[in-house]
């Protein structure tokens, strides 16, 4: 009934899938993939993220609805803009299968990829610029009553204009500050999970994002994730080693948490955040000390953190236009390199002893036009045979649980990370560029790559959290 479609201008519907031309794959998880693509009419480069249908018969999962809803209602320079939506209907054998894609502008890097790129060394003024943008975006989010709930380096996208974007709202939810509702504790990737969540808190608030920001800040300073726990227990201990054991003076309410007994068996550690990070300057150490407070109530909110002296003392935050242009680096690139290495690794073990070299190429600003991907391609030998890095957190196709609790991966990784939320016992297989990564499941844990489908029975209601109290009214 085309004669009824009168007001075409106002109601254009979605773009057609054919408007875009697919290019390379940017990410791959067990449950989906992200492609780089070009909008044919305008030539703009985008990332197409396929919304995963766990079960075609049930339509769009509520987690995807949440993500779309939130992204559509948020607009901020530091929040990734959802520029378009695509629906493609494929009919096969009488049934029509819809695929839904989210369209984002293409970004050159994610923070994990950038930090892992040995050619790039962030300087303090760059870190200040990125951290400020991260806090500004977060302040907006929290003022808009949204919790991100999955702050981590691989969910931060960066472009070559020095702009940082918070991405991946798959676990985010809006909240009412007056609500005293239990939320699901199955949120936040383990390495970035705050102590109150590790101890079973279910009435957390926006301060869980602030802890994540603290972890990301420290990661930018050090160059790798700072708390790389291999299990939830190990995670607690690693946090305590730096942030100290909880005491009634550091964290008055900690004994009220459900799992506080777990901590008692650890030896008591003194708090030494400032000492640990003193080498990055007094201001940095002090700000970090505030962000990484064990007691969520003592962490500053994002707006307060933005007023910290750190941002107003030399070296001042870089201006975005002064940021060096890096070659594109995504977390997925590393996975490709590792895959490549896994295939050829046995032929060149001699190189593996080479120390990781981090040569800053900051001085040699490549011209803006020069984004030659070949410079940093998987064929590049200088990466191919690097030593397996213990800090790399290798994730085999979203199957092993390096960033477990919620699987690995970031914005460009599809949805793999939500696969193993309830997995507390899994031991991640880090470092090793395992050739048989597909068989690399942790036998000890409850993890199974398709455990998501196990969730489905109730997952369709509660969203990512399975039986989480979340999502119910």
């Amino acid at each position, binding site marked *: 009934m085309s004669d009824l479609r009168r007001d075409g201008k106002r109601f254009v519907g979605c773009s057609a899938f054919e408007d875009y031309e697919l290019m390379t794959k940017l990410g791959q998880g067990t449950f989906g993939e992200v492609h780089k693509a070009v909008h044919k009419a305008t030539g703009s480069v985008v990332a197409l993220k396929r919304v995963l249908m766990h079960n075609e018969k*049930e339509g769009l999962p509520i987690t995807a609805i949440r993500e779309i809803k939130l992204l559509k209602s948020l607009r901020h320079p530091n929040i990734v803009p959802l520029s378009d939506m695509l629906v493609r209907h494929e009919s096969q054998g009488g049934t029509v299968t819809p695929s839904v894609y989210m369209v984002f502008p293409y970004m050159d890097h994610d923070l994990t990829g950038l930090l892992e790129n040995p050619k790039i060394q962030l300087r303090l003024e760059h870190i200040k610029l990125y951290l400020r943008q991260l806090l500004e975006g977060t302040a907006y989010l929290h003022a808009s009553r949204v919790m991100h709930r999955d702050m981590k380096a691989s969910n931060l996208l960066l472009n070559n204009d020095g702009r940082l974007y918070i991405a991946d709202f798959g676990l985010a939810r809006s909240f009412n500050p007056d609500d005293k509702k239990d939320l699901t504790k199955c949120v936040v990737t383990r390495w970035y999970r705050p102590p109150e969540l590790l101890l079973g808190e279910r009435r957390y608030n926006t301060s869980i994002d602030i802890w994540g920001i603290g972890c990301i800040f420290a990661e930018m300073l050090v160059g790798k994730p700072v708390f790389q726990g291999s299990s939830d227990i190990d995670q607690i201990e690693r946090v305590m080693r730096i942030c100290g054991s909880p005491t009634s003076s550091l964290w008055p309410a900690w004994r009220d948490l459900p799992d506080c007994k777990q901590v008692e068996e650890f030896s008591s550690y003194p708090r030494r955040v400032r000492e640990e990070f003193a080498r990055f300057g007094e201001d940095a150490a002090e700000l970090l000390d505030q962000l990484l407070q064990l007691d969520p109530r003592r962490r500053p909110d994002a707006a307060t953190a933005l007023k910290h002296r750190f941002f107003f003392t030399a070296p001042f935050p870089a201006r975005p236009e002064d940021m060096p242009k890096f070659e594109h680096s995504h977390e997925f690139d590393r996975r490709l390199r590792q895959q490549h290495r896994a295939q050829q690794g046995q032929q060149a073990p001699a190189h593996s002893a080479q120390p990781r070299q981090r040569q800053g190429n900051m001085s040699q600003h490549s011209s803006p036009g020069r984004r030659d991907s070949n410079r940093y391609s998987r064929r590049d030998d200088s990466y191919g045979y690097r030593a397996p890095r213990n800090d790399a957190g290798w994730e085999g196709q979203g199957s092993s649980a390096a960033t477990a609790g919620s699987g690995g991966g970031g914005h460009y990784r599809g949805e793999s990370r939500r696969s193993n939320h309830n997995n507390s016992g899994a031991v991640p297989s880090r470092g090793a560029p395992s050739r048989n990564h597909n068989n690399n499941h942790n036998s000890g844990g409850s993890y199974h790559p398709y455990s998501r489908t196990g969730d489905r029975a109730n997952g369709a*209601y509660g969203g990512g959290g399975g039986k989480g109290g979340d999502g119910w009214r």
Partner: protein
Amino acid sequence: MAANYWESSQFQRFLLTRYELAEIESIHMLQHLTTVDVTHLKIYFSNLMLRIGKRLRARQETIATAIIYFKRFYINNSLYDIDPYLMAATCMYLACKTEECPHHIKHIWGESKAAIAEVSADIKFQYEIPDIAECESYLLEEMKFYLVVYHPYQVLIDLNEHIKLPKSSLQAAWSIINDSYCTNAILIYPPHVIAVASLFLSRVIDQGILGDLDAQQWFADLNVDITDILQVVNDMIELYHTWKSYADDKIPDLVQKYIADLAAVA
């Protein structure tokens, strides 16, 4: 919700003028139906979704969201394009998800089927569960994935903080808002206009007292265009007038005939 109404797609993209809507209706519907029929259809499908919603024990706002989705879809499409009974079930399914009170698709399917059978045993609802999922993608596409909608209910509650209506008047205003979803008002006016109009109307009906405030002065101070309010009041009175000739059991045949007419033209 995160953003506010004035920034929303509801205001910036989906708000139509009275004239635009009248034109859409006159071109697409009034060739086959009388104006009274058109109003009856609106009442019918709003009531149907209310029935489904009640069976699901959904909150009023969730039902209202579903009704807006339904209206949005059929602005650009005819009842012939997609069976309105299927669309009603699908809108409920999607609205339950966006309003964070999700139900299993099977449950929605079953309750929709039961609600439709309640209206009339003659209606054929031959769809299966995957049809709702497929239909959902058409709905999402048509709405361009703009899912957040605003309703007058919260405004009413907020206004009542100031004027402290007696409970019966508040209930009356609430019901008038419910009924306003049988008109096009929510497609034309921001939610607060409808909320104020409902208050106004409930006061006129009720002859209640607006707290300690002088009613006329209170409405005058609201900084809401009084002509808009009177328009909505007018729409409501017209609706109630037409409602007198409305009977649930006549409409299924009307829908059938209308769809058949559309099919003949196609």
